[in-house]
């Protein structure tokens, strides 16, 4: 039975799943990258994801267009980002703990809304496969890379887009300045709080889309706590990727590869103690964090509140 895992078609299937399952990690981690580069640690990503997953699903469930669902998720994500910004930036609260508050709020509210407004586990028809003409016909690679739904492509497009915004635009320069030395940025006339509000809203929107990519893109169903802590992994992936978009991409693919392998091992009924195998990415993340912890490219002002002097 182990042999089945190594046939070409299985391998293609696994890689296809890997590319597909990286979607929520990518959206959420790239969003978190914006916040962290500006110096704010948002630990509430999982809560925002759940809210996005619910609102995206609910709008589609009520018969609206899928993209309207994505927009609804973005709207709720921006609102959750604003809430986090108010608590962390305006009220200067301790960022790690306020993130826990946001997580519990999103977890509880999404379950409350789900039970009140929908009640039982229902399915919707989410985003369909959208094979890219010509490219999808390439044997092997075509199926792995170019036979996905629109949200999957969008997630990968967000990688260069985020890189561009952070490294090649004025906003990106401000983000990096505020994250590195808020006092100096303030002296130069950059609104520290304004920049942090912006990045947290961007991060909230992307986290919510990450949630929606689960509920109307990959699983096409909403369940209570359906993210299962994925949002916390997304936060870790930003550290894992040393605050670089390419690093985040690598981390997301690593986690999704393990998820994909696990799915296929189960599907093929291979007797591998998969519970032990799925511990590996978490152990690996700890090891990587241990080796990279002393790196200096961390935003120097990460998780530090900023208050203007008198």
């Amino acid at each position, binding site marked *: 039975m182990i042999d089945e895992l190594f046939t070409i078609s299985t391998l293609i299937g696994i890689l296809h799943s890997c590319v597909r399952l990286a979607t929520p990690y990518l959206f959420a981690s790239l969003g978190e990258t914006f916040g962290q580069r500006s110096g704010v*640690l948002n*630990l509430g990503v999982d*809560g925002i994801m759940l809210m996005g997953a619910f609102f995206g699903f609910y709008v589609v469930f009520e018969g609206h267009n899928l993209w309207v669902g994505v927009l609804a998720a973005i709207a709720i994500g921006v609102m959750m980002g604003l*809430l986090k910004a*108010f*608590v962390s930036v305006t*009220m*200067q*609260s*301790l*960022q*790690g*703990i*306020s993130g*826990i*508050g*946001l*997580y*519990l*709020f*999103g*977890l*509880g*509210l999404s*379950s*409350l*809304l789900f*039970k*009140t*407004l929908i009640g039982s586990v229902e399915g919707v028809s989410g985003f369909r496969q959208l094979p890219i003409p010509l490219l999808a016909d390439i044997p092997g690679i075509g199926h792995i890379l170019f036979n996905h739904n629109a949200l999957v492509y969008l997630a990968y497009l967000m990688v260069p887009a985020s890189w561009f915004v952070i490294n090649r635009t004025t906003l990106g320069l401000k983000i990096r300045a505020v994250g590195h030395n808020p006092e100096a940025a303030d002296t130069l006339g950059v609104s520290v709080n304004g920049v942090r509000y912006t990045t947290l809203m961007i991060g909230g929107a992307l986290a919510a889309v990450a949630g929606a990519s689960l509920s109307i893109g990959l699983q096409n169903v909403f369940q*209570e706590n359906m993210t299962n*802590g994925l949002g*916390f*992994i997304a*936060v*870790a992936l930003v*550290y894992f990727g040393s605050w670089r978009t390419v690093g985040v991409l690598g981390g997301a693919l690593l986690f999704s590869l393990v998820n994909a392998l696990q799915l296929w091992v189960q599907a093929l009924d291979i007797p591998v*103690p998969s*519970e*032990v195998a*799925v*511990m590996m990415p*978490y*152990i690996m*993340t*700890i090891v990587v*964090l*241990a080796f990279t*912890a*002393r790196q200096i490219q*961390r935003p120097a002002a*990460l*998780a*530090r509140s900023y208050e203007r002097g008198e």
Partner: protein
Amino acid sequence: MNTRLFLAKLIDVLLPVLAMVIALLVGVLLLLLLGTDPFEAYSALIQGALGNVSGITQTLTKATPLLLVGLGICIAFRGGVINIGGEGQIVVGALAATAFGVGFGNLPALILLPLTLISGATAGLIWGGIPGLLKARLGVNEILTTVMMNQIALRLMNFLLRGPMLDPEHVAAGTSIPQSAALPESIWLTRLVPRTLFHSGAILAVLLALAVYFLLWRTTIGYRIRAVGLNPHASRYAGIPVPKYVTLSLALSGMLCGLAGAVEVLGVHHRMLEGLSGGYGFSGIVAALFGKLHPLGAIPASALFGALLVGADKMQRAVQVPSALAIALQGLVVLFVVSSDLYVRRRTRRRVGEDGSDGPPAAEGERREESEEERDPAQLARGEGGTIQAG
């Protein structure tokens, strides 16, 4: 001055209560928007949690693990480290206690019971100590490692409960509920009220609250933990081995969470099963914050949140308002409590300024110690990486 100090302290104590009131009001708004009657819902909640003996004993039963976890959180946060790994530490504590209690089931109860509790506590100590060591020696962010350790613990539990620890009787009967064999009845914790789940673990938790208070404010170790939490740089300058105390606070925190898992097994379920941690790892953080990170404040706080959890379940059954409301309310309480810290910090700064100009601060040693007790660990969530050096 003294009246002002008293007023300030009163406000400090009342702020969490105010946060709770605001959270409940937001809850009213939510329920109205969802078209349910908030007064019906809240009265079902209160009635369910406190209305009769059954409700009160369930509340206290839920409060027990919350208090133990909350005490662990107090130590960690006072020591300037954030422990989000409560869930995982509860799970490994429960697993270790079950494995020991079942494995050495023929030992006399007088020896087996303490050893079972100790194995749970030790497992939690290790599970919290690893992130502590990584932070102290390598500067790894403990928030991330404790989150990862949660995931690893859950996987470990899934594996053990489906394989090595699966109840042999279930295997024989052909059912496949993932749970362990039962612990010997001789070491089950005594029920304090007959025919309820309320067990003597509650007494242990309250005694430990006193012990943690004593540790933090009456011993050198506790003084150093708090000093490191308030200012690692100054602590290192004063000759305190900072890495050692960072590790110690997370390890002790994990130990109390592991003990919570062991107590849940010994007092409530009498075996290990899935879902045993029940979100206590997070609710314990809420309770600790609500109690102003004070071990004695954690006692009423955990009772309050125990009541909220029990009441929400009853409310769901009585008037069909989902119990998830309680989780959302907890989130709001955290957000309001941490936001109100801005006010406390600003006032502390004003007071420090006045002390400097008004009179000789050295003559008021006792009061200064008191006010230090009130302050939040300034370095919390800021002790990122490079601030702590080995040696």
